Structure formats: structure tokens, C-alpha cells
């Protein structure tokens, strides 16, 4: 497959991707491009497949059609060893944090270093404490993963995702569960990482304002399609109903708040029958 991407500066390009879960089509011939050194946001209603998209880019799920190129390599055709080499350069922040529960915060952040490098313990210590300091949790290094709140767990996961200094990082809902202060710190941190390290970032988020403040480019996806794209300014001025509804948070519009269901009244009246 030829890379039909218009920008030569693209680090990740998703072309003509289709993916289904059972009978449900999650992506229908979708194409996205993520520029090097930029923050690209993916927004869209809950359940549209944002997490799924990140897992496809990371090579954990296989598309039915289409391809994903990361740094010129087709993720789904790589041999296992090559895929793992590529993944060392891809950080991913899971929505749930995905910390290892049998280790404390320090060991969780040190985990990728211990697995992939031969650094001495004192160097590991320095690196880990630096990353923990960046997310404001150096003091929590001794806590076990299950002693953290959801927001703290996500920040530890962020520290872990950047500890190998990857070329790119995928954030799945980094702002969820953060208080205004740590939210501000995180927004700043994502921006700073992107600036100072030249990290290419993909941010999946519902938080319209925070995301618009840091993103260089935004994709709005819904029902398997890209329904809007552009710089935050363009998105704000977009005349697409989809995008407007999403940015303003209106309940009515082309995007449905409800998961597809049969008629509400019918459903209530037919109570007693099992599905």
C-alpha cells in the first residue's frame, strides 16, 4: 500500500481503516494523519472507538481493511520483534492507567527501564524520580498501585509512559478525574513534553477546552467517520452540525447521546418480555 499522505512530515498515518466489533462497524474507511512534533487531538462521543483507534495504532488490534504507518513502518505487517522495537518508541497512557498492581509506584515507573535497559539502579532512581517529580507524585513513590486514586494512577501511568523517552505518546483521556490544579499541570506537562522533547502526541479527550488549548490539530470522529478536522480555531468556526454540537455540548443534534436502541416508548411498554 502506498502512503498517500499529503504531508511529508507525517509520523503516523492511518489510511482507509475499517474495523468492526461483532456486527458493529466501529470505523468505516477512516483516514487520519498525525504530524511529527505536533499535538493532535481525537475527540468524539463516548463509545465511538477512540480507545480502539489507539489500540489499532499500537498494533494490539488488527484492522479489517486499511493500514497504519508509524514512522514509515506498517504496524500490522511487522514481525513480532520489529513491532516490539517500534513499541519501545511509542508511549501509551491507558484510560485505566494499567499499572502493575503487585508493584509500588516507583517500581511501576522503573519497569520499562529495568526491562529494556541495563542502567544501574542509581541511574534508574534518578530517572524515575525526575519523571515522578514532573507529574507531582515524587512523594508517593512508595505507595502501592491500589493505594492511588484514579487521577493519581493516571499520572503515574504518564510518568511510566515517558520514562523511556519515546518519539510519540498516545494519551487516552489524560484529564479525566483530575482536579483543576493537576489538570492545569497536566495540560502544561503535555505541552512541555511536546515542545522540549519534540514528542508527537495524540490526545484522546472529551475536555473540549483543555484539548483545544493545547492541540495543534483536531479530529472529531463519530459513528466510524471523521466528521470534522482542522486547527482548534477552524473547528470552533466549523459550520458542521456534528462539530458544533460536540464543541457546545448540546444534547440534540446529529450526534446521539443514546447508544442505538429501539423506540423508548415501545421499550417501556413491552416491559416484562425478556430481550
Amino acid at each position, binding site marked *: 500500500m502506498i502512503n498517500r499522505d499529503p504531508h511529508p512530515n507525517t509520523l503516523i498515518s492511518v489510511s482507509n481503516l475499517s474495523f468492526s466489533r461483532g456486527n458493529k462497524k466501529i470505523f468505516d474507511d477512516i483516514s487520519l494523519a498525525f504530524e511529527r512534533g505536533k499535538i493532535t487531538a481525537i475527540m468524539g462521543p463516548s463509545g465511538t472507538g477512540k480507545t480502539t483507534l489507539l489500540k489499532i495504532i499500537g498494533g494490539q488490534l488488527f484492522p479489517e481493511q486499511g493500514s497504519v504507518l508509524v514512522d514509515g513502518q506498517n504496524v500490522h505487517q511487522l514481525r513480532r520483534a520489529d513491532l516490539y522495537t517500534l*513499541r519501545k518508541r511509542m508511549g*501509551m497512557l491507558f484510560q485505566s492507567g494499567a499499572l502493575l498492581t503487585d508493584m509500588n509506584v516507583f517500581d511501576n515507573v522503573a519497569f520499562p527501564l529495568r526491562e529494556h535497559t541495563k542502567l544501574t539502579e542509581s541511574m534508574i532512581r534518578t530517572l524515575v524520580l525526575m519523571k515522578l517529580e514532573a507529574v507531582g507524585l515524587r512523594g508517593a513513590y512508595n505507595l502501592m498501585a491500589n493505594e492511588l486514586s484514579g487521577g493519581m494512577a493516571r499520572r503515574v501511568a504518564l510518568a511510566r509512559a515517558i520514562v523511556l523517552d519515546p518519539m510519540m505518546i498516545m494519551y487516552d483521556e489524560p484529564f479525566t478525574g483530575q482536579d483543576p490544579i493537576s489538570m492545569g499541570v497536566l495540560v502544561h506537562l503535555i505541552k512541555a513534553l511536546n515542545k522540549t522533547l519534540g514528542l508527537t502526541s495524540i490526545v484522546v479527550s472529551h475536555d473540549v477546552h483543555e484539548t483545544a488549548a493545547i492541540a495543534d490539530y483536531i479530529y472529531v470522529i463519530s459513528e466510524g467517520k471523521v466528521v470534522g478536522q482542522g486547527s482548534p480555531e477552524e473547528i470552533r468556526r466549523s459550520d458542521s452540525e456534528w462539530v458544533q454540537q460536540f464543541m457546545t455540548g448540546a444534547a440534540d443534534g446529529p450526534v446521539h447521546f443514546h447508544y442505538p436502541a429501539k423506540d423508548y416508548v415501545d421499550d417501556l411498554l413491552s416491559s416484562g418480555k425478556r430481550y
Partner: protein
Amino acid sequence: MIELLAHLGKSTRASFSKLGRATFFLLQCLAGIGSVLPRPRLLLNQLYSVGVLSFLIISISGLFVGMVLGLQGFYILSDFGAEETLGVMVAASLVRELGPVVSALLFAGRAGSALTAEIGLMKATEQLSGMEMMAVDPIKRIISPRFLAGFLSMPLLTALFSVIGIIGGQIVGSGLLGVDEGGYWSQMQAKLDFHDDIINGVIKSVVFGFITSWIALFEGYDAVPTSEGISRATTRTVVNSAFSILGLDFILTALMFGDD
């Protein structure tokens, strides 16, 4: 009727595909063992949680099984005036059959179910996925060390079970029922065959350790990642291990002791 056939077809296909997944899993797991060896710490940690933590249940069970054997054996043997051979009877039953089988059943219940729940939960909380994204192969890092630990612990736990059982039989036999202590030990030493009894018992325990660890780890890895899915997987580990252990024990016994 047609429905039944269709259902049968479906479940047959499901079991074959599961068997396929299990085989593939085993191959990956075995291939991963090579990368455990340079990191003995991983193995040691697992030997502790899989093996050492099973010591207590294995020792206590071994003691009681041995004591019961001592009692039952004494009543039968004393009818023939052959109380002296109590030691042979207790030791042979333990080393050939009860040691490997009962310790494997206990191991499946104690360590196997714990392994399944642990792996299943790691899957449900995306820890395995997370590792994959950090370019760490969860098979090599998590599964293989546990498999190796289970496989190595089983013969040792079995030996522990049998030794404690033999002591239990002796406590009851000479302590309570007055069998001559020297006779208990010397008859045992004279009659027990190193190859026929001990080696065969060890072979059994190695096979059971292999199969139980495989089942436990696979069920966890293949579990539906929900609380219900994990609880079912844990049950399947115990049930499938028990069936496999008892079935294989019959086959192995027939092969080993069949022609003499």
C-alpha cells in the same frame, strides 16, 4: 434434533478452537522459558508464591493421609500377621499413587486457582495489554516464570507429601499400634524399588505439574476479562486439572506397572 446437532457442532468447534489456542499458548510459554533463565529473580519470586506457600497445606495433608494409611493398613495386615510390612504398604501407596495424585489435586486447588485468578485479573485490568504496549512480552515476563515454577515445585511438593506421609504412618503404626519401628523402616527399604516406585512416582508428579500449571495459566490468560469470567475460569482450572490428573494417573499407572 437438528438444533441439538447444530448445538453439538458448535460446541465441538468451540472446544477444538480452545484446544488450538491452548496448544499455541503452551508453545509460546515454553519458548519463553529461555528468557527466564537469565533472570533467576523472576523464577525465585514465583517459586516462593507457587511452591513455598503450598508447603503448609501439602505437609498437613500428607501427615493425615499417612496416618490414615497407617491405621487402615494395620487392620488389614494384622489379620495376616504381617504388621511388619506396614511400612512397605504405606510407602508404596504414597510414593506410587497417593503422593503424586493428592499433592497435584491440592496444588491445583491451592496454587492453580490462584494463578488463574491472578492472570485473569491482570488481563481484566489491562495490565497485560499495558505490558505489550511497553514492548514487554507478557508471556515471557509473566507466564513462563510461573509455568516453570509450577513445573519445578510439583515434584518437590510431592516428595514432601510422601515423606511426611510415611512419617505419619510410622507415628500411628509404631507409636499407637505397636508395630516394631525397625521393621517398619527396614522392610520399607528392602521392598521399595528405586526405579519402579520412586522414579515412576517422580515421573507422575512431573507430568501432573506440567499439566496443572498449563491449565491454570491458560485458563487465566484465556478468561473473559470480567469478574464473572474470572470466577468461571478459576472453577474450570480446578475441575479440568482434577480430571486431567486422575485420567492421566490411570494411563500412566497402566503404562508403568501394567506388565509386571
